[in-house]
Structure formats: structure tokens, C-alpha cells
């Protein structure tokens, strides 16, 4: 927020908090404030924070934020207090905390950090939230109100009641009331406050009520219990919705990972064991992109969608030309050869890039979650992946149904010899198909880089699942893959709560094995004499 707005908001703080410091404005008061903070014992820190907040100094906020992100340090010999601008590596860039002039690099050895721990951070967040409440930016205010939940202590009670006195947007005051109510219920065992919290789905509010239930005041306990039961039903619904979402999102991951395989395997009967590594390539492309465009993870991510596709597709073509074309009609051999390739690709990544996992940054707009209500929120990154998966699927469907390539591909799947005789260049189709399948794998990699490790083993973790999905869905049938993926995902997530993660996975695998016994050709088998034998 701009300095002016900060100032206006600070005025209120000054108005209500009586502070000798604010009055006496001789030489820079920051020195004293910061030194207090630096030397404060854990017990005194709170006071020091409040002092800074109430000092009305326009630098207060930046100091507190620096403190919060653990970037306030003291230069050992000079005792000067500085803000660390870049704390990577062994030499850190610092700036003067008071004048905020850049002091260049300095060895870590020469710095003493002013440490903060979670307890302090809570108070800090409370205080900062107080400041934000007065920002005339509704979102900020709402957020601040939310942050205050469970962070209210008696120091804040008075200012907050003040705050409520003035007329403010409902959204904000609701929160503040709740925040106060939580404080009252927890600290004072105030029965009236329970009404305020009744009906709230927010975990913090329920936490307060839960603790009230166990209190020795029967009246309070009873009231709290009723308040809790009133939301029980809502919660159940939300939980169900949540589980469903989890299932779909896991399913979408499976679909993404498998759909490329569905194409290569389904159309060409090629068991591409290197499929996982193609996914890995996609993920590494994302990482590479972010290295090329430092500071713009979002843009990099978007660019790596086409890039990942290309890289994987080219790799696919290379594999097809160099190995698979020699193994026509020998699916089991392709399985072995491609497995060899997967080993090579993995080791290549290990030696060329690093055996360690790579950091792929999640852009702002993809982190956090979409809040439906206090009890139900959908994690954004998975939401995007889900959407992406459906998008990719739709695109593939289009290609298969509407384009010349798709037509030829289907022709080749149905009856290779016949298609050939009708002048379709089967080899070309093969290359194109394989490239397409591989490219899609690359896309899966790009998506996965937002969910899991980007490392040499990335592919290994998905290859078996992918095969399961394809076989379960029915080879050569994209719809099958979609349905299978989503089904297995949901099944897994439904089982997990009571079976545990490991058992759930096992159960799903066994289920697939048995299913294949019943329907050897999966959910949507290809019928007719062509498929026989």
C-alpha cells in the first residue's frame, strides 16, 4: 500500500494509543525502537512490537514485515541494524534499516540475526492485521479481519471495540465480531459470545466452541454444544464435497499421466515404458523455463505448456525413429527396449542436471485455494490441473475426431493393412501418433511440476498407474481412459480415510487385476473380428 494511505491509517492508531515516543520527535526514534526489539527477551518482544506499531513511524510497517520474514539483522562489530535484501548464498545484500540505503554485500559471518519464532509471529500478524483494518481497501480489511481470528488478546480488545463502533463494511465487522467473540469465549468464558460464533464454519471459531464444550461451566458447555451441532450437517455436506473434489483431482492427474499412453499404446500397440520419463522431461522443461525467466514463474509456466509439448514430442520422435520402428508388431520387445531408454533418460538427467530435486515455483495465481465457504476450499493448483486435464482431453478428442490425422490414426488402429492399401502412409501416421502421445506426456509433466517433486524419479512414480488406467479403461479408447482415471482416483480417495493410503493403493491395484479377469479388454473394449485373437 502507498505511504500516504499508510499514514492515514496510522493516524487512527496514534489517536487511540497514547505513546510518549510519538510525542518526542528529536533524533531518529527508529534506533531506540529497533534496539529494543533486537535486545528484547522473548517476553519483552511483544511490547517492542507494539511500541513500533504505535510509534506512528512510517517505516514501522516495513520494519515489522522485515522482522516477520526474519530479515532484520545487526552488524556484529558496528551494531548497526540492517534489513537483509537477499539472503541466499554466503554473502548477503543488506540495506540500512533506518535510511534503507543499500549497503551492498556482507559476509554472513558478520551478521547477527534478530530471531523471530512462531509465538512472536502470531503477535506480529495480529498487530499488522490491526493496521490493515484501517486500510480503506476492502479486500485488505476483510483479510485482516480473518487474520484476527484467534489472534485477539486483551491489548487488542479495546481498539477492536472502538473499530466496531464506527460503521464499517458488514463483511469486515462480522469477522471482527467473531474474532472478539472467540477471545471472549476462550478467555472469559462469556456465554453471549457463543451466539456470535454459532453457525460459523470457520475452523478457528469451532475450535473455540469445542474448547468451550469441555469447560466446567455447564451452561456455557451446553450452549456451545448446541452451537456446534447446528453446523454439523453443513460440515458433513462440505466434507463429502471435499472428498469428491480430492477424488476428481487425483483422477485428473491419472488421466493426464495416462492419456498420452492411451494414444501410443492404444493406436500403435507400443508399450512405451519410457512414457514416465517423457512426463519427467515436461516437468524439467517447466523448471528450465523458470530458470530462463527468473521472477516470472507464471509466464514461464504458461510458456512451458507449448515448450514441454515440443520437447517431449521431439524426444518421442527420436525414440520412435531410433528404436520402435525396428520392433513393429513385437510389443513385448518394445516394452524392453523402451524400458532401457527410460533408464538412460533418468541417468542422463541425474548426470547432466542433478540427482537432486529441482525447485519449481508455484506462481501466485496458482497457490492458495478458492474459498467456497469457511469449511470448504478448493486448492487452486489442483483446480487448475483438473481444468487443464479436461482441456487436454477435449483437444485430443477434437484431433482424433475432426482432423485428417485423427481419421488416419483411427484407420490404422482399425486395420493396419487395409489402411495401408488405401494409401495412408502408416509409418508417417506412426511417427505423428507417437509424437502426439509423447507431447501429451510432456504436458502432463508441466502440470505435475506444480503438484509434486521435479526429480529423476518423477516418471517412475506414474508409469505403473498410467498403465493401470489405460488397461482398465480399455486400450485404444480415450473415453475409457478418462472414465477409468477419474474412477480410480475417486475410488482411491474414498478408500483412503478408512483404509489408509497404502492399503487404498493396494486395494485399487487388486481391484484392477480382478477386473481385468472379468473384462480382459477393459471398460470400453474394441469389439468385432479385428480385435479378436
Amino acid at each position, binding site marked *: 500500500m502507498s505511504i500516504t494511505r499508510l499514514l492515514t491509517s496510522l493516524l487512527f492508531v496514534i489517536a487511540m494509543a497514547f505513546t510518549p515516543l510519538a510525542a518526542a520527535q528529536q533524533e531518529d526514534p527508529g534506533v531506540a525502537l529497533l534496539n529494543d526489539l533486537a535486545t528484547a527477551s522473548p517476553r519483552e518482544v511483544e511490547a517492542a512490537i507494539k511500541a513500533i506499531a504505535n510509534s506512528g513511524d512510517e517505516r514501522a510497517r516495513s520494519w515489522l514485515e522485515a522482522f516477520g*520474514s526474519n530479515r532484520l539483522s545487526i552488524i556484529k562489530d558496528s551494531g548497526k541494524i540492517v534489513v537483509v535484501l537477499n539472503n541466499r548464498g*554466503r554473502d548477503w545484500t543488506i540495506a540500512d534499516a533506518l535510511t534503507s540505503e543499500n549497503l551492498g554485500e556482507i559476509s554472513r*559471518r558478520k551478521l547477527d540475526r534478530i530471531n523471530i*519464532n512462531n509465538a512472536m509471529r502470531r503477535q506480529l500478524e495480529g498487530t499488522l492485521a490491526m493496521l490493515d483494518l484501517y486500510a480503506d481497501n476492502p479486500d485488505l480489511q476483510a483479510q485482516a479481519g480473518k487474520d484476527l481470528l484467534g489472534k485477539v488478546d486483551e491489548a487488542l480488545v479495546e481498539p477492536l471495540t472502538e473499530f466496531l463502533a464506527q460503521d464499517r463494511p458488514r463483511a469486515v465487522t462480522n469477522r471482527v465480531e467473531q474474532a472478539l467473540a472467540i477471545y471472549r469465549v476462550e478467555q472469559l468464558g462469556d456465554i453471549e459470545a457463543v451466539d456470535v460464533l454459532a453457525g460459523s464454519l470457520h475452523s478457528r471459531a469451532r475450535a473455540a466452541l469445542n474448547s*468451550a464444550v469441555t469447560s466446567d461451566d455447564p451452561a456455557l458447555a451446553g450452549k456451545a454444544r448446541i452451537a456446534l451441532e447446528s453446523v454439523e450437517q453443513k460440515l458433513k455436506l462440505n466434507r463429502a464435497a471435499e472428498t469428491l473434489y480430492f477424488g476428481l483431482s487425483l483422477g485428473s492427474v491419472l488421466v493426464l499421466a495416462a492419456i498420452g499412453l492411451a494414444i501410443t499404446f492404444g493406436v500403435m500397440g507400443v508399450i512405451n515404458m519410457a512414457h514416465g520419463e517423457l512426463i519427467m522431461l515436461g516437468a524439467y522443461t517447466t523448471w528450465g523455463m523458470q530458470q530462463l525467466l527468473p521472477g516470472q514463474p507464471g509466464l514461464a509456466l504458461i510458456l512451458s505448456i507449448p515448450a514441454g509439448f515440443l520437447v517431449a514430442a521431439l524426444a518421442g520422435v527420436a525414440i520412435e525413429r531410433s528404436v520402435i520402428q525396428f520392433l513393429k508388431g513385437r510389443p513385448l520387445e518394445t516394452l524392453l527396449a523402451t524400458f532401457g531408454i527410460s533408464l538412460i533418460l533418468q541417468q542422463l538427467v541425474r548426470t547432466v542436471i542433478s*540427482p537432486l530435486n529441482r525447485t519449481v515455483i508455484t506462481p501466485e495465481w496458482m*497457490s492458495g485455494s478458492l474459498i467456497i465457504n469457511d469449511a470448504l476450499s478448493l486448492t487452486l493448483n489442483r483446480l487448475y490441473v483438473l481444468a487443464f486435464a479436461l482441456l487436454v482431453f477435449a483437444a485430443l478428442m477434437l484431433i482424433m475426431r475432426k482432423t485428417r490425422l485423427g481419421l488416419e490414426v483411427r484407420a490404422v488402429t482399425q486395420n493396419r493393412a487395409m489402411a495401408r492399401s488405401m494409401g495412408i502412409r502408416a509409418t508417417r501416421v506412426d511417427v505423428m501418433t507417437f509424437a502426439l502421445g509423447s507431447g501429451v506426456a510432456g504436458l502432463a509433466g508441466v502440470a505435475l511440476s506444480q503438484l509434486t517433486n521435479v*526429480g529423476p524419479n518423477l516418471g517412475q512414480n506414474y508409469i505403473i498407474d498410467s498403465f493401470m488406467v489405460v488397461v482398465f479403461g480399455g486400450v485404444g479408447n480415450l473415453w475409457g481412459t478418462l472414465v477409468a482415471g477419474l474412477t480410480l482416483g475417486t475410488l482411491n480417495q474414498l478408500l483412503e480415510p478408512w483404509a489408509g*493410503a*497404502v492399503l487404498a493403493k493396494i486395494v485399487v491395484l487388486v481391484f484392477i487385476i480382478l477386473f481385468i479377469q472379468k473384462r480382459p479388454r477393459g471398460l470400453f473394449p474394441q469389439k468385432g473380428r479385428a480385435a479378436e485373437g
Partner: protein
Amino acid sequence: MNAKKSLKLGLSALALTVSLSVTAQEGPIKVGILHSLSGTMAISETALKDTMLMLIEKQNAEGGVLGRQLEPVVVDPASNWPLFAEKARELLAQEKVDVIFGNWTSVSRKSVLPVIEELNGLLFYPVQYEGEESSENVFYTGAAPNQQAIPAVDYLMNTIGVERWVLAGTDYVYPRTTNKILETYLKDQGVAEADIMINYTPFGHSDWQNIVSDIKRFGSAGKKTAVVSTINGDANVPFYRELGNQGVSASDIPVVAFSVGEQELSGIDTGPLVGHLAAWNYFMSVDSDANYDFIDEWVKFSQDDEAVTNDPMEAHYIGFNMYIEAVNKAGTTDVDAVKDAIIGVSVPNLTGGYATMMPNHHITKPVLIGEIQDNGQFSTVWQTPSTVAGDAWSDFLPGSRDLIADWRKPMSCGNFNVKEGKCGASAGEQALAAE
């Protein structure tokens, strides 16, 4: 035909190695390095191999020990547990090494153990582990549960005021044992059964949605809740990601991890993790000159400005110096002599204190609690006033409550039962091995 050929090859190769190792005595002191350089564990173990090479190089530069140079013998067990045993045998029987530094995973140690004992070798094991073991031939320079888990829990309980506990771990022996210990410990501290939630996941688990939302739910019961994580390696990234996205912030539900170090963090976007905790005996961020020097050397040696150091590396640093001390003290590299000499040896650690080898072959360590920073480092927020001695046998497990280990003569027993006042199986076992 080929069977015979390959056999011949085998023999010739063998003859070679033998003729090499005939001159073992009074040549250089051979230091075996038994860390996976390929396979899944290569991620963690390669760094330890390099650490050893660095330390040896340094020692040689300073003139070696007893006027003899040190010669590293590196083998690759390729993250394959039976191969660990095989390679250990190779090191001891073929290469005739004087000491081995190696292993990371529990299972690899378990698979090596019988070989080391049979051939009476020396093994320095640098990783925090589940305890419940004390071998005459193994020196545990990593943390035992009482040097990591218990203090961490104490911190959460006393400083942060946690009353409700989630024990989440990967399903293998270290988390299992640690959680068993913590469970008993917490109950002794008066925590109710209902306030403890235990959850196990497979290796490399990547879908944490359900578990994290369970944790959230568990945490909304009105008591301060914390997660004690023994989640291993790769599974951590998606776990923390999910935490961040589902809005579980360190100030609501802090996570204290025992297996997440600087190296693991180097693969994570630590933004959303700031404030979560880890318990170790060493942090790269520790403010001591010994540490800064070590980091400088490491950066120089690995020729990578971003290179990070971590707890097991410090363990090797300590173990190696202890071995050198002991050899000097004993005046020989003879295994039995060194075994006796090393007990009581104390060398400086990297956190500005001293580490001493205890009679139970564990060492004394300070316990540090650190908060994750946005730069992938930890900032120490709490630390034990003095160092803690490693406890081979936990006091919180029924089976081992009455067991102690003391390898000093005359007791020299790995599992002495104080109740029955007799040594457990190992003694008889030594007798067998001795034959």
C-alpha cells in the same frame, strides 16, 4: 563354454584385487566409503561420499595419521540393500580397509551389520536413526530418538503449548519406532489417547489432500495442535505444498520434521513453508566459525556456490575426527585397539561445542530446533542448554526399557539387561563370531 569363460574372468579380476590388497599392512590407512552413488538414495548419499573425500584430503594435507596417508576406497551399493552387505564384505575381506564410513537408510545398516560384526570391522553411521541397536563394531554419530524427537516434542509442549499431536510418518522402521516412543512419552506426559493421531504413508507418497484435510479437522478441536513429521524424502514436497495450499500456516499448526534438512529444502519452493520447524543437531545457518570454515571448504571442494551442508555431513565430520583421534591415541589402526581407544574421545562439533563418544557407541550432541526460512535455511529458535548423550535403548519402549549398552571392559555388552543383570544375546553371538 561361456559359463567357464565368465568364471575365468571372475577369477582373474579377483586375482587382481587380491594381489592389490596383499600389501594392505603398513601401506596407507584404507578408509572404506559405503554410500550409494546411484539409485534412489544417491540423492542424499553422494554428498556424504564427497564429504568424506574432502575430510580425507584435508587430513592427508596435514600429514595423515601416524605418519601414514589415508586412502579412500569408494564403492557403490547402488541403493540396493543386499548389495550393501556384499560391498561391505568386499571392503573388509578383499580391500582389507581399516574403517568404513557409510550407510544412510536403516535397512542398509541392518543388512551390513552382520558382515561388519563377522569380519570385525569398524563402521561409522552418520544418520539419525531409530535406536534400538548397539553393535560392538558400529559407531552411531547420528542422533538417536532421544537426541531429536523427545527434545523437539518438549519444545512444542513447553514453549508453544501444544496439546494435540499428529504423528505423521512414512511407513518404515524409523518413523514407526520414533512414533512408538513419542506415543509412550506423550502419554507419560498426560496427553490423552484422543489427542494423538498417527498416520503412515508409503514412500514417495504424492497425494496428501485427504491427510492434510484430516489434520486440519483434527486441529480444529480447540487445542493447540502440532504435526510431528517423520515423512521421508520425496514425499515432503507435495506434503508441504498441500499444507500451504490448504492454508495450514505455521502459526496455526506448526509441523516439526525430523527428516527434512537443508538438502531436502533445496528442492522445495520454501515460500509457503516459512515458520515450520525441524529438529536436528546441526544447521547450516549455525553461527559458529567452525561451521563457517566448514561451509567454505565444502563450497570450495564441491565447486558449487549454492552447495548446502546438513546434519549427516556434520556427523561424518565428527566421526572422522573421532577416528583420527582414536588412532592417534591407540597408536595403531588395529580394530580392537581403536574400539577401546575411541570411547571417551571428544572432538569439536560444528555448532561450537564438543562431541564425546559414549560407552554405548553413541555420541553427545546438542539438539537444535529451527524454523524454515524463505531462503531454504533454518533459523535456530531453540536449543538444548547442554549436549545430550545418545541413548541406544529407548526408555519408552517395553522391550528395551531395561537394556543398556556399555562396550567398556569388563562388561562390553550391547544389550545388558539391568533387571536380570545379564548380557543379552550379543555376547554369545560374539563368541560364535569369534570362532
